[in-house]
């Protein structure tokens, strides 16, 4: 084949590509198998139980969707606020977003006991449930993402030749701002609702928070934290792809700008979280008879977790990302971004696992939970799925508009 798969840029040989893809595919297959077990034999395949009603998977969903937030944020900034330096990572953002959301939804389907009834949530929804809001928004937003992803796919060499696709891509691209707007709206709500998911649990004083109107404070905390995690994750991914592919793909200023957004959001998040935690410790939790310090009396979930969340994985990276000098230096930018992502993941972990580990009934024991291999397998399937989708997109689709310019020296 003389013609390059992506216009004007070089890609590794098919053999190399195969060598990269095969292990991931194997992992994916294994994941599918373990997910299949859970579907066929039921959730007894997991290590969840009546007390640990949620486990690894819900943690995964929360985290992955927070990481996927890069999509709506970049879309918003590029199409609505015309921040053109982010155009370079827009496609990546869309692909990552698409992977994260579709992955999350699939895992959710495995996680529920009766997947066949998933559509009941749409058919007779309980509009007061945060989960309903999440379900609606996520599915809608996945559709939106699909339509944002479609143009990238249609730009692939062979499809591009077909006039119908060419023109459709052209026309659809014109209307992107609309979709970006809708996407932002949806994301705002479901990111929030994911936080609300735990914030509304009156029966779980560790998670319960007061808030505004129908939304507990975690609603807003999650919006902010996801907005902080999204760009950082995007930044890391882009950098990783550059390293793995060995091409320069985006201008540094794009990464820096991502870092800046992340930093701003993160510092906001940290501030709000501090206030929220303060109110929770002094008012919300004790008022229902649960002095907050007791929640941290059960190792390994000590107060150090809270400290890490706020300082090590919050304040620290935020300050680095806000420093325009350091931000331009990858040796500062990347670790900061990594810390940010890890911090948000930790927050999601605390929200799910620690919440459920703590007993509410005074005579009930504190529990620990270790996922079964089927759960881990399903988890890995999502990771592998992400890598595969991205790898194929990167190989066969024009993902990085700047790559061609950067290739010319």
């Amino acid at each position, binding site marked *: 084949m003389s013609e390059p798969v992506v216009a004007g840029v070089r890609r590794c040989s098919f053999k190399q590509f195969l060598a990269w893809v095969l292990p991931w595919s194997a992992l994916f297959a294994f994941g599918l198998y373990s997910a299949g077990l859970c579907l066929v034999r*039921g*959730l*007894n395949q997991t*290590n*969840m*139980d*009546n*007390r*640990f*009603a*949620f486990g690894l998977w819900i943690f995964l969903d929360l985290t992955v969707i927070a990481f996927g937030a890069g999509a709506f944020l970049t879309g918003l900034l590029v199409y609505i606020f015309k921040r053109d330096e982010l155009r370079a990572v827009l496609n990546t953002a869309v692909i990552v977003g698409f992977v994260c959301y579709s992955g999350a939804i699939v895992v959710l389907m495995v*996680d*529920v*006991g*009766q997947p066949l*009834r*998933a559509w*009941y*949530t749409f*058919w*007779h*929804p*309980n509009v*007061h*449930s*945060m*989960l*309903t809001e999440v*379900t609606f928004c996520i599915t809608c937003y996945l559709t939106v993402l699909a339509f944002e992803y479609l143009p990238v796919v249609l730009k692939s060499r062979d499809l591009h030749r077909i006039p119908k696709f060419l023109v459709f891509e052209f026309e659809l691209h014109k209307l992107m701002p609309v979709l970006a707007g809708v996407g932002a709206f949806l994301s705002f709500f479901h990111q929030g609702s994911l936080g609300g*998911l*735990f914030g*509304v*649990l*009156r*029966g*779980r*004083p560790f998670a319960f928070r007061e808030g505004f109107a129908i939304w507990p404070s975690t609603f807003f905390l999650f919006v902010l934290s996801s907005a902080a995690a999204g760009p950082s994750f995007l930044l890391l991914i882009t950098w990783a792809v550059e390293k793995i592919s060995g091409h320069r793909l985006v201008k540094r200023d794009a990464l820096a700008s991502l870092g800046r957004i992340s930093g701003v959001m993160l510092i906001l998040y940290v501030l709000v979280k501090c206030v929220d935690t303060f109110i929770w410790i002094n008012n919300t939790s004790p*008022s*229902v*008879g*649960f002095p907050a310090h*007791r929640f941290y*009396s059960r190792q390994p979930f000590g107060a150090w977790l809270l400290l890490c969340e706020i300082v090590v994985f919050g304040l620290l990276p935020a300050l680095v990302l806000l420093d325009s000098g350091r931000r331009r230096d990858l040796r500062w930018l990347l670790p900061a971004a990594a810390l940010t992502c890890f911090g948000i993941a930790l927050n999601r972990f605390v929200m799910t696992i620690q*919440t*459920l580990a703590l*007993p*509410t*009934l*005074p*005579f*009930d*024991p*504190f*529990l*620990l*939970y*270790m996922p079964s291999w089927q759960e881990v397998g399903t988890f890995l399937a999502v990771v592998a799925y992400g890598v595969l989708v991205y790898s194929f997109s990167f190989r066969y689709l024009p993902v990085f508009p700047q790559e061609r310019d950067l290739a010319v020296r």
Partner: protein
Amino acid sequence: MSRYGMVIDIDRCNGCGACMVACAAENNVPPAHRDATERTGVTWMRVYRVENGAAYPANRARFLPVMCQQCGDTPCAAVCPQQAVERDPKTGIIDQVPQRCLGCRYCMAACPYHARYFNWWDPVWPAGMEKTLNPAVAPRMRGVVEKCNFCHARYQAARAEAAAAGKKAGKIGYTPACAEACPVEAISFGDLDDPDSAVAGGAASPDSFRLLERLNTQSKVYYRSREPWVRQMAGSRLVQIRKEKARV
């Protein structure tokens, strides 16, 4: 209109478990699966052994039957994404509709009493034992949540009877399986709004309390004990209790 509730006398309960077995038999809850643990079984009614935390010989223990507390202000109903948790306005009973349940287990995370149970396995009885199932109660399928509904089937039967006898509905007396079975008559059941019912009296008595009262779930299951430590413990003080091996 009635508001059914329970009063359980902790100072009588000897933890024999008759209530649990009666409940399971009445509501077609299957025997534990081979691999089931105390955390994956289905036990609408679970009797906990609670201790005052002191070391021998100062230690004292009581038995605390815990089932769905039938909250007046339910944390669970609000979170169900597809309205599978229903409140019967005529009785105040919260019921789970297995046919509509998605099995997302959000309600279980929401319930502070851990009184909701998920069907981790298909409901399986030893060969031939299906013959002994209660015809009045449909067994639940795998992958849905279930919980105590104050023996709703018995309420329905009682209502049908009352209707047949031409009595006006609302003032219907019946007894759930656990209350009927309790050998020491520790469990009394009735209409909390009916001032001259036993439960109304029991709920009002000074030694009565509710679990996690400060969460303000308005639960309709009251407990009674003359032991101060029991009343204190049942609030929300975390006490060190009998070591139970959590599944890890």
